[in-house]
């Protein structure tokens, strides 16, 4: 069975589905027997959600105004 350090190294890739077949089988065998690495896997999933959940931003009104001005000033001659 692979060691915890080798399992932990691949958890994000496992969630991405980019681990090769043999590595995935070895990792799943490890996860079947190691509660701590299962908990790490759950935390890796949380972290992925955490990143995705912090993707939005409010555009400050003055920035939005300047960007809209740029758009309004575009003319057919610029293409």
């Amino acid at each position, binding site marked *: 069975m692979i060691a915890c350090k080798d399992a*932990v190294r691949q958890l994000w890739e496992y969630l991405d589905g*980019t681990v090769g077949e043999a590595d995935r089988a070895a990792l799943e065998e490890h996860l079947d027997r190691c509660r701590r690495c299962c908990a*790490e896997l759950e935390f890796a999933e949380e972290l992925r959600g955490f*990143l995705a959940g912090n993707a939005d931003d409010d555009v400050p009104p003055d920035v939005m105004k300047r960007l809209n001005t740029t758009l309004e000033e*575009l003319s057919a001659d610029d293409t």
Partner: protein
Amino acid sequence: MPEQKVEAAPEDQVESFQRLARAQLPRLYAIARRLCGDDAEDAVQDALLKAFERFDQLDDPDAGPAWLARVLVNCCHDRHRHDARQPAEIDFEALERFSLYRKIALEDPFPYSDSLHLDFLGGFGREDVRAVLLMLPEHYRTPLVLVHMYGFATKELASLLDIPLGTVLARLHRGRKLFEQRLWDYAEQTGMLEEAPR
């Protein structure tokens, strides 16, 4: 009779571009803030002008939002290319050994918490996350931000940045580990680990 591609009149092109870009401004700005920090507005301005110049090359209107985002990513990337600062050295051996999950469990910053790890993440606001991302070198930050926050595929990113897929995957791996490490560092430096009095 063979189908003929109907060229839009220039005025229509301007309006079509404005409509597309206006709808995408919040997303473009959000991406730029995470890739370019304080240069975000300038990067979006660059991207709008460059995209408009090439708008006639966009054949599929449904692909407009993704196309616009790609133009922006290139603008952000170009800005970093001109940045001659040397990135801080990273101890990759230590990085490979680092696990945020275990660090939190070991240090136990909130001894009375029933959900220690979630409470740790819950301490970060949107601006904190952005600040942590900006602590990462650009070539690790870009894949992390684009893949995990804005849904870019790794193959798409490889083509966009003109680097091999294996390089994107390696940078993504290191970017995630660095992000975990920097989350902890940031929490320590900003006093987030000091538990509020009960």
